[in-house]
């Protein structure tokens, strides 16, 4: 059904483009998530309002329209020309960063207040508390929703085919035009997105396990108290865990 030359010249590079766009958009979205998510709980009201406004605006705009806007309107208005992939990455990163900021904000808010108080009692600055106490504890809680978002983002990258970046979807469409066959090509695309998403999920699970181990939550592979280890961190800090076990 697919000629070898076409596969090599279009489809493989298409997969590669999709992966690149996913990677760069995710990196941008990740940074935006943290900056905006943290600032949404800033002590300064003005900062909170600005960060909140970012979240509301970017979560409520269509990624696709925003992508068109960056790719086609910005060059006209500001005389800045974005290379197609950059426009796509910018639009996806900024939009998904808004969603991500909600994940960061929520996970930080879920860190028990007692942890913040312990940090104050040791005279940490706000930044130190965030960096050393709150973010490390919130991090494992962020990973499952970040995984969801990453998969959404991967699938969302297909939008860049509409600003003529030759990603997987673009190549598929091209092939459909050449071959005049829709069913096998779209099926192949679906499977490819699934495989990529599945691989990302496996990677994120691994990260999550590691993150939990780092805050003393994961089951240890050996050890006498393996059965007690599946408790949550909240149990651990409130002292309901292991009172009888360890001594």
């Amino acid at each position, binding site marked *: 059904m697919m000629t070898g030359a076409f596969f090599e010249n279009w489809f493989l590079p298409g997969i590669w483009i999709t992966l690149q766009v996913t990677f760069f958009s995710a990196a941008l979205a990740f940074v935006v998530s943290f900056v905006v998510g943290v600032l949404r709980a800033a002590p300064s009201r003005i900062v909170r309002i600005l960060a909140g406004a970012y979240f509301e605006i970017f979560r409520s705009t269509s990624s696709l329209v925003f992508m068109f806007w960056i790719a086609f309107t910005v060059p006209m208005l500001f005389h800045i020309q974005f290379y197609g992939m950059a426009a796509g990455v910018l639009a996806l990163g900024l939009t998904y960063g808004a969603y991500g900021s909600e994940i960061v904000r929520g996970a930080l808010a879920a860190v028990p207040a007692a942890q913040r108080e*312990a940090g104050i009692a*040791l005279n*940490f600055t706000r930044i130190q508390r965030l960096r050393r106490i709150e973010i490390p*504890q919130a991090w494992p809680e962020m990973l499952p929703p970040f995984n969801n978002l990453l998969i959404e983002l991967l699938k969302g990258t297909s939008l860049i085919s509409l600003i003529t970046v030759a990603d997987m979807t673009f190549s598929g469409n091209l092939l459909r035009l050449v071959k005049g066959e829709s069913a096998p090509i779209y099926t192949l695309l679906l499977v490819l997105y699934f495989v990529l998403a599945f691989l990302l999920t496996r990677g994120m699970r691994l990260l999550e396990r590691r993150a939990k181990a780092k805050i003393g939550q994961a089951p240890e592979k050996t050890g006498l108290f393996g059965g007690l280890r599946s408790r949550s961190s909240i149990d*651990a*800090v409130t*002292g309901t865990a292991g*009172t009888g076990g360890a001594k």
Partner: protein
Amino acid sequence: MSAESPHTANTPVTDANPAVDGSELIRFDKVTKRFAGNTVLDNLCFSVDSGKHVTLIGPSGSGKTTILRLLMTLVKPDEGTIKVGGDYLTHEERGGKLVPAGEKHIREVRKNIGMVFQQFNLFPNMKVLQNIMEAPVQVLGLSKDEAEARARELLDMVGLADRCDEYPSRLSGGQQQRVAIARALAMRPQVLLLDEVTSALDPELVAGVLDVLRDVARTTDITMLCVTHEMNFARDISDQVLMFDGGKVVESGSPEKIFGDPDHDRTREFLSAVL
């Protein structure tokens, strides 16, 4: 606005040496604190001298814990001022006026105060040794080696030298609380606040924690403010006992006096209920 009360007006603001035994270290001046319209502390005045061990007793809801939380700056007073070592804790003087203090001022005064919590509040993301080293390194700027030496010494003192590589969740409540005491002491505070530190513990683990605190009381000149229901412990370590009720000090005196022959019926009632 003149919040200075007569007896503190001449206290030097900085260079005083509050560690000198007997000088006034903590002063509450007409402190009022309300939570949702409920007055928890009502125009409260009291002071604690440096090096003293003071126990706060009284029925629950009488504002004892709030006093410790005010001192730790976890909550701010609605009215009145608190001084520690001659400095305002949550206020600062600017242009002759007393205004709410900025973060920098608060941290400067707060560095003299440490706290041990009812629920330990160890950092679950750090192993025991790191829990103790973290603040000395980050906040005091100690080198890793210095901080580690200090932490190991303290862990030895609380009898947990062999658990330094464990995560807190692997320890019993009593062990966690002893680590929390070591963590607070690693900051070399002048004042140690103990907020019902044995209330969350299984009965058989209480003694170990109290032994450590007796040790601290005996071997250091740290001023201790202690909210506890362990009356025997209070009797042992206290120089002074403050009986609270309804957000006010009902009665204050030596443990012999308060536990033996209190002046007020309210104190007598309370003690007969808990002893």
